[in-house]
């Protein structure tokens, strides 16, 4: 088995059938039954539980399931009957966890149906849900995560390779006695209806008593060089480091520098903004991304906005842009969101559009994690990707991160002093490290 690296932070995972097959031979009830059985395979072998949400709440589900044909608003168009049957996204926000079935296939929803010579939906769904939970393909023949289609029915025990894979991500399933019991089946229980007014969930705060982000203990929502000054955005605030304060090592000194409120400097951004998702500068213009909209500025004067991302020909399923930068390698502008990226044709400032053969999968940027917080093209012409409290320098020539081990952001970008890290050294994927101000 191979673990992709992303996982759900919860063990109670919700799913919903958002768009059923258009094939009149199979009913929605048949499809739901096949999907439920496929989830049961994973539930029986892990600590995870799966809860079905009704169609009206499909957008709230961790795993949204659709049947589509051909191009369908992601970077993996289906190819008609045969060859590619379905695909899924690894855990994450936005499309993370979602499963798409090719509706040009002849889906078989009953193991007793030997006439239709179709593809058993249950078997493909069980495989795709493995991706939704964080497993990549396995090269073990007979494993559920083997990439080529194989028959598999709901009475089959989850193969050992897959069982170990899911245990590696979410831990062992415990029996009521507390010992490890693979394939332990929980007692059947009534699933309560979802709370129509769930309590709000607030992210953990890294703020001082005035609500400002802590300079030496925070992640960065957006970061950009604007007129050669470094701007770092977090929540409602930003730090500005003038060019003449950047030291010879290109690091900045920020001791005692307090952040300012973003909307009071960038007049024209919403006064009630809670954060900025991404910012980049190109020529005279500065582009801000917040949620599903963007704004265009010249210096700190608004020229246009809010403009919906769809105007850039970005799919309406994208809720935000994680990072934006102009790449030193080719001077093109790139946008990142979740596991995807786009190249933007912004040569004509009145007509921003992503190029036609995008989005593409971010694994092109080898070693950069999905769902980045921000990205910067720095004065050394290199690109730096940020996630949590760490960053990766990108090597354009090798097309991969310079080091798989990320570096703490605060010491370099904020001039803070590193202190012993309580949870061990930072490592790839560990974005929970901290540092403290020199003062």
């Amino acid at each position, binding site marked *: *088995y191979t673990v992709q690296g992303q996982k759900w932070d919860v063990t109670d995972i919700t799913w919903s059938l958002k768009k059923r097959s258009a094939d009149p031979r199979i009913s929605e009830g048949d499809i739901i039954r096949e999907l439920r059985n496929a989830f049961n395979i994973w539930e029986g072998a892990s600590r995870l539980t799966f809860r079905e949400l009704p169609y009206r709440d499909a957008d709230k589900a961790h795993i949204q399931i659709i049947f589509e044909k051909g191009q369908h608003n992601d970077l993996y168009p289906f190819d*008609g009957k045969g*060859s590619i049957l379905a695909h899924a996204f690894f855990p994450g926000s936005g499309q993370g966890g979602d499963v798409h079935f090719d509706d040009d296939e002849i889906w078989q929803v009953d193991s007793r149906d030997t006439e239709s010579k179709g593809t058993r939906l249950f078997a493909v769904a069980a495989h795709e849900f493995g991706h939704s939970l964080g497993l990549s393909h396995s090269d073990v023949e007979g494993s559920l995560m083997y990439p080529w289609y194989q028959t598999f029915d709901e009475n089959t025990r989850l193969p050992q390779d897959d069982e170990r894979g899911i245990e590696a991500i979410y831990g062992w399933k415990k029996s009521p006695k507390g010992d490890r019991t693979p394939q332990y089946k929980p007692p059947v229980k009534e699933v309560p209806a979802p709370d129509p007014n769930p309590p709000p969930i607030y992210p953990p705060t890294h703020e001082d008593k005035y609500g400002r982000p802590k300079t030496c203990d925070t992640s960065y929502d957006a970061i950009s060089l604007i007129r050669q000054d470094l701007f770092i955005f977090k929540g409602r605030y930003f730090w500005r480091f003038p060019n003449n304060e950047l030291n010879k090592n290109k690091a900045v000194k920020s001791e005692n520098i307090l952040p300012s409120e973003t909307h009071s400097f960038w007049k024209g951004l919403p006064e009630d903004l809670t954060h900025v998702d991404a910012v980049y500068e190109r020529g005279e213009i500065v582009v801000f991304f917040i949620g599903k909209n963007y704004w265009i500025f010249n210096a700190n004067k608004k020229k246009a906005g809010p403009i919906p991302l769809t105007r850039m020909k970005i799919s309406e399923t994208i809720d935000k842009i994680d990072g934006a930068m102009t790449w030193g390698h080719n001077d093109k502008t790139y946008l990142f969101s979740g596991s995807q990226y786009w190249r933007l044709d912004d040569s004509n400032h009145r007509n921003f559009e992503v190029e036609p053969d995008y989005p*593409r999968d971010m*694994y092109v940027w*080898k070693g950069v994690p999905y769902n980045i917080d921000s990205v910067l093209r720095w004065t050394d012409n290199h690109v730096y990707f940020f996630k949590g409290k760490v960053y990766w320098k990108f090597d354009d020539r090798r097309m991969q991160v310079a080091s798989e081990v990320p570096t703490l952001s605060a010491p370099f970008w904020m001039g803070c002093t590193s202190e012993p890290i309580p949870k061990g050294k930072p490592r790839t994927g560990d974005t929970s490290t901290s540092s403290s101000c020199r003062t």
Partner: protein
Amino acid sequence: APAKKFSSEAYLLKFGYLPQSNIEIRDRVSESTMVAAIKNFQRFGHINVTGVIDEDTRRLMAKPRCGVPDRLAGQFNSRRHRMKR
């Protein structure tokens, strides 16, 4: 076998055996890179490792399958992402 829908190179690129960086920085695929990609694919699919697109390889490429790449970033010629028991 059903009709093949992708060229061999497109298939290897799509499923992660050829690095997609070739697309972004417009490098040409060298012969050695292509041979290594074919061998990795043949090993993954448990067919004879010949380094050339032979009949078994074509047949495997035509089989119905999942659309997610077999090899993700950083997994070329490496088993470091496999978890120890």
